[in-house]
């Protein structure tokens, strides 16, 4: 059972609209390396991990990813909420506005809808964990690209936080992989 805590994991204080960044950030929400895919990947894989260590790592990281989903949703919302129709059109978001208005919807920066093809569970703990490690590295790389695309510290700071979380999660998955290797998997 999950309980919702009314608290953002890291404080967000975004005061300036920036449609370009809102659009770019969509990638880390509903894109192939995004937080939604990460949450679903781990929360599915946790069920069949062979021991408590594996179940705990997948469960705990999967849960934290849900907090990151909320951070991305909020950042996109805050960057977009004050935009006018003309500004949306200028940034190529008229297609987005047609289908979603200013709603948050899981898609990538090209408005391609989220798909579960982004995640996999192949029934093998080693294969699953190696995929998870790759997912964390890919997400780290995308966060770095996003940081390079803006000068706004209000956006850069939470992205630095999220990037470092990918580094930590990667390390824990690596330790879990070593643990299973030692067990003979």
């Amino acid at each position, binding site marked *: 059972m999950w*309980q919702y805590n009314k608290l953002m994991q890291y404080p967000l204080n975004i005061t300036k609209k920036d449609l370009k960044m809102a659009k770019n950030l969509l990638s880390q929400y509903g894109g192939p390396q995004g937080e939604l895919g990460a949450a679903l990947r781990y929360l599915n894989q946790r069920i069949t991990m062979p021991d408590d260590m594996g179940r705990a790592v997948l469960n705990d990281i999967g849960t934290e990813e849900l907090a990151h989903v909320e951070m991305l949703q909020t950042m996109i919302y805050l960057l977009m909420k004050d935009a006018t129709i003309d500004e949306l059109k200028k940034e190529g978001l008229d297609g987005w506005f047609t289908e979603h208005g200013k709603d948050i919807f899981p898609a990538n920066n090209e408005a391609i809808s989220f798909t579960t093809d982004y995640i996999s569970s192949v029934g093998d703990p080693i294969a699953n964990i190696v995929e998870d490690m790759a997912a964390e590295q890919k997400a780290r790389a995308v966060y770095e690209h996003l940081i390079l695309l803006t000068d706004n510290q209000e956006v850069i700071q939470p992205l630095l936080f999220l990037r470092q979380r990918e580094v930590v999660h990667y390390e824990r998955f690596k330790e879990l992989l070593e643990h299973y290797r030692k067990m003979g998997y």
Partner: protein
Amino acid sequence: MFNHYNYFDNYGSRDTRFYVALQGLSKGNMSQGLYDNFGNYVPRELPYTDENALRAYAFAIVDLGLYLDTHPNEANVKILYDQYVAKYNEIVKKMENSNKMLNITTPNTDKVWTWPNCFPWEAKN
């Protein structure tokens, strides 16, 4: 006032050192050895506020908990984890006394139903 920057400072087990909670939240990680700076970007030290203290303790619990998932025998880290759980619950207790709801299980003495004063995505932090 309680100095949240120095709390548990200079703490370290055999070869593991941890940032204090608010520093950890600012950087996105508690294990000092694992922190990986990106280029010349410098994470801002978050200011001390009640809300950031709650976040910092929650963060310490999440990150140390994850560390303990893969290092279950490090008793010193478990002690540190327990201390942060206690600090977190202290702040939650304070919130209860002022009828601020953290989650649906938070006791609340209002006679009528009220929606949360502010959902996190609308909050001004």
